[in-house]
């Protein structure tokens, strides 16, 4: 599904990713853990296609297709979804309008027909209901006046509507209390499936109690330095990232 080979990325001339290799199979959930500054969020943004990041070397393939050559909206239509660490507020664009524009734009790019209004409304109502998002919130501007937890739930709502093939969750647990964490994790778990791969980026092991990964990677200084099963997360929780930070570059 996702193949990242020898990825080198700079921002403002500063090297952040340093020969990163990652392979995520179809239907698998991989956790990427690492200390602050190890390049976790950079990886997320590079996959989604943010402008400021310069890829120096390497490739990213999604089912064999070169993701790096695509515009952000093309990537989304191909099934790449990034759940932002800090979802942005968009005053004046109602959440409903936003969801509908996004879904129909993706369908159009894929040559599919637009969803009818009743079908779309039903889809949103069902997905929002499962995430405890009320209709009033959907009429407001995207994320405007939402609490931290509501913003994260809104990200998962978008994921549920857009049904990506590859979901990248960037620190989805940050800023969540335990109840919100559970709602968000349940939302993510419902979206797990044989055709959907996930990359779950997190600093803490806590999230992985709820979203149990198939594989755990440790990212340090821009590359994967260790890979293991879900028990690796527990080990990191106990011992911290110290040993990885002291490793020579």
């Amino acid at each position, binding site marked *: 599904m996702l193949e990242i080979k020898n990825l080198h990325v700079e921002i403002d001339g500063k090297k952040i990713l340093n020969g990163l290799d990652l392979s995520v199979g179809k239907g698998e959930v991989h956790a990427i853990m690492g200390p602050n500054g190890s390049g976790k969020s950079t990886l997320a943004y590079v996959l*989604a*296609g*943010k*402008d400021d990041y310069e890829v120096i070397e390497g490739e990213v393939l999604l089912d064999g297709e070169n993701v790096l050559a695509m*515009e*952000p*909206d093309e*990537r*989304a*239509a191909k099934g790449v*979804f*990034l759940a*932002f660490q800090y*979802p*942005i507020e*968009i*005053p*004046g*664009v109602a959440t409903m*309008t*936003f969801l509908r*524009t*996004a*879904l129909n*734009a*993706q369908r159009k*790019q894929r040559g599919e027909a637009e969803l009818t209004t009743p079908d779309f409304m039903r889809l949103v109502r069902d997905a929002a209901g499962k995430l405890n998002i009320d209709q009033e919130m959907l009429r407001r*501007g995207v994320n405007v006046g939402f609490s931290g937890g509501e913003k994260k739930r809104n990200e998962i709502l*978008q994921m549920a509507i*857009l049904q990506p093939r590859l979901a990248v969750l960037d620190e989805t647990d940050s800023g969540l209390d335990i109840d919100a964490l559970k709602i968000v994790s349940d939302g993510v778990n419902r979206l797990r499936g044989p055709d959907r791969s996930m990359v779950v980026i997190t600093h803490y092991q806590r999230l992985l109690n709820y979203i149990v990964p198939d594989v755990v990677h440790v990212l340090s200084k821009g590359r994967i330095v260790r890979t293991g099963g879900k028990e690796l997360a527990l080990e990191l929780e106990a011992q911290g990232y110290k040993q990885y930070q002291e490793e020579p570059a």
Partner: protein
Amino acid sequence: MNAEVRQMKTAAELGLAAEWEQVKDRLPGPAGLRENAFQRFAAVGLPHRRVEEWKYTDLRALMRDAKPLAAPPDAAALDRARSAGSVLDDVTCRRIVFVDGVFSAELSDLAGLEQGLTIRSMAQALADGDALIDAHLGRVVPAERDPAVALNTAFMGDGAVIHVAAGSSVDRPLNLVFLAAGTTSAAMFTRSLIVVEQGARAMVIETHEAAGASDYQVNAALELVVAEGAHVDHVKVIGEEAHALHVSTLMAKVGAHARYNDFSFIVGGGVVRNQLYLHFHGNETVAGIRGVNLLRGKQHADTTMVVDHNSVGCQSRELFKSVLDGESRGVFQGKIIVRPHAQQTDAKMATHALLLSEQAEADAKPELEIFADDVQCGHGATAGDLDEDLLFYLRSRGIPEKDAEALLVQAFIGEAVEGIEHARLRDVLMEVAVKWLGERD
């Protein structure tokens, strides 16, 4: 040594003077008022960049020549006017149509006027004499020092004279349709007077569009009296042809406990100057003054507003949004005056410009002149381009770049458009904006 140094007269100034000599004897109505106005204009000439109020719109430089007064429309012009589409086609209105500055009874809808509503043509009222004109014309707001207003008073031809009697309610919005339909170059000076008496309700929508004309100049003035407790909406849509010169002035006096809601929408014209003079003349009025400019190419649009708070406890909200593409230039000058006795005034003015290209320019000059001490006044001005992070967020959800930009522009202007109370009109103006955005390359 304080002798006034007069600059050399420009071709446009000479043209205006020649035109004045030629037409002054056949213009209807008060010759003295006209003569005085023209002399006031002639003393100062066309305003230029060293005149503070015209700092960003150097009319002396921008107005290359003076066009002759438009001839009354012939059958072909009326045909063009009849078949011309309007941005307001989908809004149910009572249309009062002026073709090349002349009232057309045939194209207007004056049947079944609501009780208390009277409408007549300004040319006729000037020629026959009219009590409403005697009471108000040129007196609503002291703006006759303004050279554009002085020119309008000198040359005014036709326009609407509308009276809404106390306590009556005009159900259908009154749409004053000003169409330029002539095929030769021409100038049109229209003047309207609208008096909405105590406790009455009316909505007035001015539309300024072309129906076949391309080389023309418009100077349109509207005097508006909003009496005590009245509720008036005024909307002006400037959708002139790309090379037209359009100067229009609103002079409004708002009485006590009135509600006044104003909206300007500038989407056309080569050089546009939109002037608003608003005087609060009674206590505790509530006013919203808003506007949206959508400019591209080499368009230049200047909105200049003076809001004069002369009474206690009035509230005004001013919000102007400009979207500037190409090499266009958007100017906003807003002055809020709070007179010494206008205590408890609550006025907030904001102007925001969104620059869609590197070559576009926004100029903003907000001013507060406050002479009272118990007031809440504020102003803000911003100019910037679209937020990259917002664009990325939208694009990461599959929305193509142009669509993402359009969505953000709609959201940007939406905040001002929301101030319009008429729901259908809001939708129609947003549709115009969507179409405008769709035409971007």
